[in-house]
């Protein structure tokens, strides 16, 4: 589903599968995930820990940690298939056409080099610039991401920056070669709320001004609601729902998304109890047959135990739920609720 533009998608992910071979068989951590990102679009990917959202991002930029591997599907960037490229070719694309931002800014920066050296090195790797021109560009980038007194700060080392400033440096690094797509994995999770708001504002502005598309991976629905155009909700390695962010946040179709939204305390409505999804997400070794959410789903029917739903049209979003199929969920299951 696209946002209504006729432009071809910048990134196409088709039936992506990420697996981990183990002694007791292959674990499927990302299972049959498909989505597009249009140029300039911000796609939020949300889910709880273990849902496979970070692995999806890592698979796209070819940074899966072994033994994790892409077990099937395709990833296309501007029409060109990138999931089967040799390491060196992919390394060129990474950085030049796809930038990456990770959760912990301290581990993304080399503590032994000043931020200026790291920026200049990255710029010269991807762009044919002389050292002095590259330094100028580095300064420009630091100003752009809002680092005060950039001329003085460029020769400082990462430990001399605060957490929020470090994350700005990481964003500047990701922007070095003007990538078309940035994959941001929990970019604000390690930061304080006031800094988080600054970083979100920065990401939004950059997307707008440069037409950079962003794949924003986070567990924080609030960040998604503020930043994303569309949102993909993942559960147990699969897409549960995908659609325009407003529709998913305000009128979720999949019972999991609905429960997830209800379990977030919101200011303005005080209830004695929060909506609660009983149980916990299954481990990769024990994903139930049929719909992976069926043991926790209040609306599950017997069809949900047998058949796995694909994404299907559910009003303004697409949800992987038999409720939106003409066949329905089948005979309703009766069961007692159990807590996690």
């Amino acid at each position, binding site marked *: 589903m696209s946002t209504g533009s006729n432009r071809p998608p910048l990134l196409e992910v088709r039936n992506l599968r990420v697996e981990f071979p183990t002694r007791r068989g292959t674990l499927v951590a990302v299972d049959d995930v498909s989505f597009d990102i249009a140029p300039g679009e911000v796609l939020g990917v949300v889910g*709880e*820990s273990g849902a496979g959202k970070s692995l999806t991002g890592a698979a796209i930029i070819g940074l899966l940690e072994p033994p994790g591997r892409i077990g099937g599907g395709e990833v296309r960037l501007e029409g060109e298939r990138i999931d089967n490229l040799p390491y060196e070719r992919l390394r060129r694309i990474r950085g030049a056409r796809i930038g990456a931002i990770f959760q912990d800014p301290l581990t993304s920066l080399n503590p032994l080099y000043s931020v200026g050296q790291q920026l200049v090195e990255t710029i010269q790797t991807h762009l044919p610039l002389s050292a002095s021109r590259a330094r100028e560009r580095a300064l420009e980038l630091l100003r752009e991401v809002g680092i005060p007194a950039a001329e003085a700060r460029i020769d400082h080392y990462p430990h001399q920056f*605060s957490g*929020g*400033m470090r994350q700005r440096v990481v964003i500047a690094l990701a922007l070095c070669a003007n990538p078309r797509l940035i994959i941001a994995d929990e970019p604000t999770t390690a930061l*304080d*709320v*006031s*800094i*988080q*708001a*600054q970083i*979100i*504002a920065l990401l939004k502005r950059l997307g707008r001004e440069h037409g950079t598309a962003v794949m924003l991976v986070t*567990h*924080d*629905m*609030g*960040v998604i*609601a*503020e930043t994303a155009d569309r949102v993909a909700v993942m559960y147990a390695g699969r897409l549960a729902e995908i659609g325009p*962010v*407003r529709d998913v*946040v*305000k009128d979720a179709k999949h019972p999991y998304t609905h*429960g*997830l*939204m*209800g*379990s*977030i*305390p*919101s*200011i*303005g409505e*005080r209830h*004695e*109890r*929060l*909506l*609660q*999804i*009983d149980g*916990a*997400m299954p481990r990769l070794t024990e994903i139930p047959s049929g719909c992976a959410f069926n043991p926790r789903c209040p609306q599950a029917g017997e069809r949900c135990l047998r058949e796995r739903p694909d994404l299907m049209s559910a009003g303004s979003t697409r949800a992987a739920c038999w409720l939106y199929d003409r066949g329905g969920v089948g005979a309703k299951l009766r069961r007692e609720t159990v*807590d*996690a």
Partner: protein
Amino acid sequence: MIQSRERPLVRLSGLKRYFDVSPPWLARVLERKPAAIVQAVDGVDIEIHRGETFSLVGESGCGKSTVARLVVGLYTPTAGAIEFDGMDMGEKRSASAMSAIRRRMQMIFQDPYASLNPRWRVFDIIAEPIRAFRLASSKQEIEERVHALLRQVRLTPADGSKFPHEFSGGQRQRISIARALASRPEFLVCDEPTSALDVSVQAQILNLMTELQRDFGLTYLFISHNLAVVYHISTRVGVMYLGRLVEVSVTDRLFRRPKHPYTRMLLDTIPDLEMSGRQRNPVGGEVPSPINPPSGCAFHPRCPFANERCRIERPLLLPIEGGTVACHGIEEGRIAIEDRGLRGPARAVK
């Protein structure tokens, strides 16, 4: 505000805790480095009443966790007093008298992976306070009590024979809660109990905490940086900035009519789930180092309303509209107090 005439369960007065983070003596002499003192908590007064949930909220480094640890006695105060049910905790007492007070307060920590001993079975983890405080006389009594506690936190007695690693994060936090309840405390200090959990599990734990409070008449001191969680669970809220309280108010009023500029800034940072399209105004700057806190009002370098007085004179917590605020601008009437509605300036339209 709860205007109870009865004695508060917990009273903190002029509470301070400084940490010496100076470089070693020789380095100080040779490199002429000054001594460095972190003023983690710098004069905090709080009264917590029976049956209420008092929350402390603020960004990292504001001293909220230090207050929690001071209250349960994990740190000793540099200055100031902690009173529990009228008894001064700093007073010298016999070990048995101290233990009788300690039994009445317990703590739940943020990280359910680090706060449970991985070599102990869950049964022994929960039984430890019962044994330590000699609350049961026979093995059978201990067993019954542990099983009852496991059921209260919605686990099963069979879970007692497992080890912590066999449980998910949410289940581990349930075990921590069962352990905290084992000594039948009246007062629970909860330091970010849900920050390490996924939202759907967070909802389960918050619901459980609300139920337990109702069933056992518990009083909570709740520490969190998550304003939505604080809004959901608290009776009253104290906002901390660099070791000091800047505003204390009943929850609803704090969120509806915030007074201190820092409180307003914090509320502005709450992501807008209602999609009202409201523009957030992220305040520039970051929390300064508590080693050299700014003079006067600690918030003045980031405050849009700061003037000369704010730079020099430290504001005191003064009563206003049933709460208290430490701000010269509010005191002088320079800063207008507005109803911001619960969702910020632009109300959500459905």
